[in-house]
């Protein structure tokens, strides 16, 4: 019953981020209001430490800890590393952007760190209780972060909409967990369906269905995606960047923990359901993105569409391909958002509409290049990571006999090329309207963009580097 050192090691990234954010809370009291960037740098140092810790634990074998409540495997530690890195890049983006908009507050970074601590708990969840705790710990700070730019109405609207749908979704998640518990008498993901005469129990099936609905809201899968465009558009762009990447990764981590890491022997039950959701998500996300004139809103639909591609890998029961896809998607999207945070007036008005980007490629060739590279990777053009990621998930689908899903994925990717290329066209070919006064450059933001673009190319050229880190995926401890 006593906690031993193996237990602590299993969730060391979580513990360090959680305790670190409590430390930030205290530090924030001591830092004078006009020196808030100190809190930001402290948070960055915290996330860097956590990322390094998680990275150093990648080689450890799979083991359960805290009496089976949590599980640690290379994939979980890799996801921890990824999430902390995304948080770090987000902080680099915020320094200039948040200062211009007057939201460079200590709370921003404390909430960000708390949200990340929830994410690093989700990646290790081996019990439905831990899963719920992690999901709530990541969601509740995010509701506040979306609304942090108050009294800007669009930010408050985004927060309220996100909160109402998020709380609604957790209602479904909790109900699903209760029914699963009722069917099996346990909250453990490993043993739940292993109990005799349980795997065909309608109570269990409804329970798992409701859990999928709850998690579907979190990753913005169709038909649970309606909150995403409004929330992504209204939230401060730095928060949107974080939500579109880290939250997506954590939501998928939860899905993988439930479907791939847990519930052994139930693949044939959930696979058709996930495949249908994946198909709907790819189609609806891409179709809706075609019509968007607002770049942030377009990226929201794009994030829905990409959730669909990752779901293809989930349906194919290939954890490694999903994690690889998410890594590539996260860095690509961060690069795109780095450009959006750069464009805007110094008074804090953002240039979200596509028109404002005309001529960007000529006036600011580097920013234009970053935007173009992000768009090419989102389409999936080699040698970017977007291509390799799509290749892996589609290959996994074909190997599992889900050929129709892979074909649908390729078709929708071709359709997506239209709206991504339109952005590149506007930025490079159209005459500059010079409507957007570009703010003074920010070194941290440039660093963030450089990291993201470097990741897009490195992972696109040498994917084996990442594959060896991700490991064999999530293995059930019970055969």
């Amino acid at each position, binding site marked *: 019953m006593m906690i031993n050192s193996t237990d602590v090691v299993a969730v060391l990234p979580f513990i360090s981020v959680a305790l670190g954010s409590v430390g930030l809370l205290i530090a924030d009291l001591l830092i004078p209001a006009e020196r808030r960037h100190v809190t930001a740098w402290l948070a960055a140092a915290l996330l860097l430490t956590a990322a390094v810790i998680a990275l150093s634990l990648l080689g450890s074998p799979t083991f359960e800890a805290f009496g089976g409540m949590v599980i640690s495997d290379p994939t979980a530690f890799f996801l921890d590393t990824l999430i902390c890195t995304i948080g770090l890049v987000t902080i680099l983006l915020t320094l200039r952007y948040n200062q211009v908009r007057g939201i460079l507050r200590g709370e921003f970074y404390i909430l960000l760190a708390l949200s990340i601590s929830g994410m690093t708990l989700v990646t290790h969840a081996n019990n439905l209780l831990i899963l719920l705790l992690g999901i709530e710990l990541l969601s509740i700070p995010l509701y*506040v972060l979306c609304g942090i730019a*108050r009294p800007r109405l669009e930010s*408050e609207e985004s927060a309220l909409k996100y909160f109402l749908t998020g709380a609604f979704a957790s*209602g479904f998640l909790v*109900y699903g967990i*209760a029914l699963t*518990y*009722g069917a099996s008498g346990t909250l453990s993901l490993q043993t739940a369906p292993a109990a005799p005469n349980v795997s065909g129990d309608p109570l269990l099936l409804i329970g798992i269905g409701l859990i999928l609905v709850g998690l579907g809201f979190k990753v913005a899968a169709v038909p649970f995606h309606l909150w995403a465009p*409004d929330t992504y558009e209204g939230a401060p762009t730095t928060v949107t960047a974080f939500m579109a990447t880290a939250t997506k990764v954590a939501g998928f981590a939860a899905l993988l923990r439930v479907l791939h890491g847990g519930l052994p022997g139930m693949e044939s039950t959930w696979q058709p359901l996930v495949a249908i959701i994946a198909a709907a998500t790819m189609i609806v996300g891409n179709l809706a993105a075609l019509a968007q004139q607002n770049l942030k809103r377009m990226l929201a639909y794009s994030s829905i569409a990409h959730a669909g591609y990752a779901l293809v890998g989930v349906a194919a029961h290939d954890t490694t391909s999903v994690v690889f896809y998410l890594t590539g998607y996260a860095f690509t999207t961060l690069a795109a958002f780095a450009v959006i945070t750069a464009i805007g007036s110094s008074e804090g008005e953002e240039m979200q509409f596509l028109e404002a980007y005309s001529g960007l490629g000529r006036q600011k060739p580097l920013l234009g290049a970053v935007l173009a590279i992000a768009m090419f990777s989102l389409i999936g053009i080699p040698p970017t990571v977007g291509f390799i990621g799509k290749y892996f998930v589609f290959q996994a689908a074909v190997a599992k006999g889900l050929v129709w899903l892979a074909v649908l994925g390729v078709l929708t990717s071709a359709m997506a090329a239209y709206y991504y290329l339109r952005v590149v066209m506007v930025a490079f070919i159209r005459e500059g309207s010079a409507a957007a006064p570009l703010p003074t450059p920010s070194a941290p933001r440039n660093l963030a963009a450089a990291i993201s673009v470097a990741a897009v190319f490195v992972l696109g050229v040498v994917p084996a580097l990442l594959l060896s880190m991700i490991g064999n995926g999530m293995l059930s401890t019970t055969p």
Partner: protein
Amino acid sequence: MPTPNVINGIPLWWYLLVASGLFAIGLYGVLARKNAIAMLMGVELMLNSVNLNLLAFWRYLNPTSAAGMAFAAFVFVVAAAEAAVGLALIISVYRTLHSIDPEKLDQLKL
């Protein structure tokens, strides 16, 4: 697993029926009301109906392990945290908009 179907003359499914009824009322509240606070109350009702479910399952199916009861305690806390953040957001919106009808929030429509 040996499961007593009736304790004190009350079968398990009575609890499940009441809980699912409460869940449905909460669901209706979230979907039908135009007042953000009423929607929040609907969500709270959903979470609490789940607690009823959890405790009934725990008592009837697996009373020797505390898992179900512990989970219910965590659901309480999650519900309270959500209510606190939700109320704060609603107050903040009300100060700006002087309304808490989510449909009046239409800055972000196409």
